[in-house]
């Protein structure tokens, strides 16, 4: 701090010499202050007397975390953050999805079942044989079509119910 004050004084001296400024007012007369250190203890009316004890400003003592900084930034008006209006609640399962897309949660079960059927289809059709007939998927406990040209794919499980049909009835009650 002492070095800073010295550099400040020298700067003031040089500027006065270069620009031919008049002598500073007594409160700014740092050269006189430096030459006469006893005058520091005397109280003065000028606010510039703070300079005698060195330059002190309020500074931050703790680092703000990244999360905190971003939170402050997003709150600013120029950040222009808006709530999303393009989300929908799926009526079947209650998960959120974007308005222009399918519900991802519901589609996941459809896709899992599709993979099963696709694999069964490729086994039924075989490899390098001409594909000439439609395919009918038959789950466990369902009637097979008779006297039809379609090929039958049997899948050894029950047809999946992705959601309950009647919410007012209790399920799995003995």
């Amino acid at each position, binding site marked *: 701090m002492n070095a800073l004050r010295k550099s400040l004084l020298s700067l003031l001296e040089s500027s006065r010499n270069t620009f031919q400024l008049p002598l500073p007012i007594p409160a700014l007369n740092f050269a006189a202050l430096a030459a006469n250190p006893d005058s520091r203890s005397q109280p003065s009316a000028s606010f510039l007397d703070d300079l005698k004890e060195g330059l002190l400003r309020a500074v931050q003592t703790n680092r703000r975390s990244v999360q905190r900084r971003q939170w402050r930034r997003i709150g600013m008006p120029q950040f222009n953050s808006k709530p999303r209006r393009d989300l929908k609640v799926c*009526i079947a399962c209650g998960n959120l999805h974007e308005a*222009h*897309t399918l519900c*991802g949660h*519901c589609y996941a079960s459809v896709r899992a079942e599709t993979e099963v059927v696709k694999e069964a289809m490729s086994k039924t059709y075989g490899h390098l044989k001409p*594909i000439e*007939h*439609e*395919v009918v998927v038959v789950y466990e406990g369902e009637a097979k079509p008779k006297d039809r040209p379609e090929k039958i794919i049997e899948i050894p499980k029950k047809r999946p119910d992705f959601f309950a049909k009647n*919410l007012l009835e209790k399920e799995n009650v003995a």
Partner: protein
Amino acid sequence: MAIPPLKIAHRIRPKSMKLRCIQEAPGRVEKLRVMLGGLIRHERIELNSHRAAETRDYAERLIQDAVLYGPHHKRSMEMASFWLKEKELVHKLFKVIAPRLENETRGFTKIWVLADPEKTSYEPGGLPGVHYKNDWVALEIKNNPLPPIRPNPTPHRSLYIPNLLLAAAAASIA
């Protein structure tokens, strides 16, 4: 003879199909053949939206020619045997898909926009996963035997859960 227009005129935005590591035009044709073969074989495929838009138009053209002219038409058969590399799929196109869709008036294929998958792969130590965003669709041929994708139908207002509960409460009070 003029080639009849498609039943659905799709507007393809001039965007890249995001093909990597291919030659310019022949590689693109090769990739389109692969995607068309997958579509005819599996009846439903997942791919990005630009590839889906391109593949859809070619598939519509193939199926429409197969429906209109049948297998004895020279140009249709040439087109089908060029675009479908596996010859069992040519049989499938003319013998299975064309009869199935001969009364279809609003296009033979359907595109569903899928939701973003969960981004588990971005987490440290997460499973490797997919890295696409807002660009993933399911392309399918109509009336296929796979489990149906349908957006959840909006039920009648009286079937909403709050209304059901309110009705039950009103009945119990009265």
